[in-house]
């Protein structure tokens, strides 16, 4: 580890802290309806679509609207990908996307996952990239924030199960939040050297005299929303390790800052909405502690390197001319600190963009992204999903605290009783159930084992990572797993759908149930949710839930691989 590396990590942490309040205030004004600089456009959309933005929907109607929009947009994308060969903006005559991949891709982008079993530059036409995938980048992100804001409304007010208007939230989030911010960020990316064109692919001669085809395309416009919306799907197969997607240290830093900006800001928005700003900061603090622990572990593990390399004479000590550590699978441009930081940020935030190959990390370095995902994508988390995941954990925390002292638990003045805890537990249990059942099935079925490229614990880690990534709606790949089969495309596609909607529904139900409760004033028996003790207890609940559900699988994967690495064994 170097002072330079730590300095960059500290600067990133400071920027995350600095953007939290302005981003939070901006989001608050978007969703409370006071920010209307595109009012005429918004009104036209409402009129054309027959939407009454003042129609305060019951949580069941809100959920139904979200499901309807997702189902229709997913089917449209499926059909468009299957018809790609006949559609315009296809200068390289890309054929129809295979049925299994079209299903997986449509599901993956609809759910903000962006798991990709294809290479974008050789599979997708410009039309598919811009009108299907980029469309979902915007709308899936807007759906996530809408759901989080709906939960915040449920906590904040007493409205008989009414939590806002899904269609208005979707349009406001897209129109005022993601479109303008993505436009500005795309311009900055272009200034940094990210390409944005409809040009033909360029054939160049390398210094060795070989011919190489360089893919072109409208990359910057997709790159901006990919990071801001925590989508993560790359225009190119190499994702953010590709110099046309991520050309400079600044573009790398801005990408990471963009990934955390909205999820961090949402904690501030939540604090304002529930009129308890200190609670918003308490959630932020819990997220930050987990982020700091993750990046420290990943950086330490990668900078320490692989002892097998050291035993074979490879210099793993950092010097002025040698990065040392484990540079396998990393861009020399970014080095170890920025690779470890990017991997932590992208898996904390359910983004899934990568600037290094997580499969090539040391076992403990690779454990960090895996654990980040398995904790429920709530360390700042996906746009919206991070906040509502953390709120569900906060509800469980006050419930457990209430059990400890024998009083009816309250969360921000709302009594937490059996139906709220049922919804919270549904949310918590579905996630590991999907991951572990799908991984277990793949570990014994020949169709699952056929996709493995590595044996032993590393192979299990690849499988576990894949199902964790899709169910957590992260989308990053550990690599090493051949996912382009009917078995994996279908199962991974289903994993994205269950990981998104089977968790969103009980969360929206929780919002509705809380909005039916009257707010009671704090009493001597109320567990305060603004103190360091609350943060510690919240962290304990998150870690215990994660450890209890995933530790056995992690012990068989990265942990045993780490121990065997010390004995000189590789997989």
């Amino acid at each position, binding site marked *: 580890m170097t002072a330079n590396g730590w300095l960059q990590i500290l600067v990133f942490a400071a920027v995350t802290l600095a953007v939290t309040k302005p981003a939070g205030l901006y989001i608050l004004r978007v969703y409370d309806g006071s920010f209307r600089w595109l009012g005429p456009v918004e009104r036209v959309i409402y009129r054309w679509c027959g939407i009454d933005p003042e129609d305060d929907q019951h949580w*069941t109607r809100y*959920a*139904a609207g979200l*499901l*309807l929009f*997702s*189902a229709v947009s*997913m*089917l449209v994308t*499926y059909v468009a990908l*299957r018809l790609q060969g006949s559609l315009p903006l296809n200068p390289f005559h890309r054929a129809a996307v295979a*049925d*299994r991949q*079209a*299903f997986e891709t*449509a*599901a993956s982008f609809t759910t903000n996952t962006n798991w990709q079993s294809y290479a974008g530059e050789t599979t997708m036409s410009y039309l598919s990239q811009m009108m299907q995938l980029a469309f979902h980048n915007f709308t899936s992100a807007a759906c996530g924030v809408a759901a989080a804001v709906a939960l915040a409304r449920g906590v904040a007010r*007493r*409205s*008989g*199960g009414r939590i806002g208007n899904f269609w208005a939230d979707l349009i406001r989030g897209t129109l005022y939040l993601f479109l303008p911010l993505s436009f500005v960020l795309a311009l900055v990316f272009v200034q940094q050297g990210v390409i944005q064109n409809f040009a033909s692919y360029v054939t160049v001669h390398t210094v060795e005299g070989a011919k190489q085809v360089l893919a072109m395309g409208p990359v910057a416009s997709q790159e901006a929303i990919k990071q801001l919306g925590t989508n993560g799907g790359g225009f190119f197969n190499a994702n953010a390790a590709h110099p046309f997607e991520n050309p400079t240290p600044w573009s790398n830093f801005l990408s990471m800052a963009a990934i955390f900006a909205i999820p961090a800001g949402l904690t501030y928005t939540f604090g304002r909405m529930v009129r308890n700003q200190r609670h918003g900061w308490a959630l932020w603090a819990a997220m930050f502690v987990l982020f700091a622990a993750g990046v420290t572990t990943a950086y330490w593990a990668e900078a320490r390197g692989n002892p097998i390399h050291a035993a074979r004479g490879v210099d793993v000590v950092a010097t002025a001319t040698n990065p040392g550590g484990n540079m396998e699978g990393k861009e020399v441009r970014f080095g170890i600190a920025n690779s470890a930081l990017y991997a932590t940020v992208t898996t904390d935030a359910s983004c899934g963009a990568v600037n290094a190959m997580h499969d090539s990390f040391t076992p403990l370095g690779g454990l960090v992204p895996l654990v980040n995902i398995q904790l429920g994508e709530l360390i700042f988390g996906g746009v919206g999903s991070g906040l509502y995941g953390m709120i569900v954990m906060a509800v469980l925390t006050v419930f457990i605290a209430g059990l400890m002292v024998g009083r009816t638990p309250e969360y921000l003045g709302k*009594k937490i*009783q*059996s*139906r709220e805890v*049922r*919804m919270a537990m*549904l949310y918590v249990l579905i996630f590991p159930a999907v991951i572990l059942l799908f991984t277990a099935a793949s570990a014994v079925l020949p169709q699952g084992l056929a996709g493995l490229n590595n044996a032993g614990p590393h192979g299990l880690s690849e499988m576990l990572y894949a199902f964790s990534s899709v169910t957590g709606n992260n989308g990053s790949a550990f690599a090493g797993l051949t996912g382009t089969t009917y078995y994996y495309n*279908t199962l991974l596609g*289903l994993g994205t*759908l269950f990981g998104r*909607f*089977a968790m969103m*529904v*009980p969360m929206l*139900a929780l919002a*509705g*149930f809380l909005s*039916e*409760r*009257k707010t009671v004033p704090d009493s001597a028996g109320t567990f305060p949710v603004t103190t360091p003790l609350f943060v510690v207890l919240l962290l304990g609940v998150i870690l215990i839930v994660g450890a209890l559900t995933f530790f056995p699988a992690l012990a068989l994967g990265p942990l045993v691989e780490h121990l065997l690495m010390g004995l000189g064994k590789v997989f």
Partner: protein
Amino acid sequence: MLDVVYIVLTLGFFALMVAYVRGCERLGREGGEGEGRP
């Protein structure tokens, strides 16, 4: 060939989610413990 299967699978999944919404609503009614809508 398998297009129909994938389209039916998609529609089936979302139909399942709609049923899930109703199930959650029912669970909420059963566990309401007296405090209803205002």
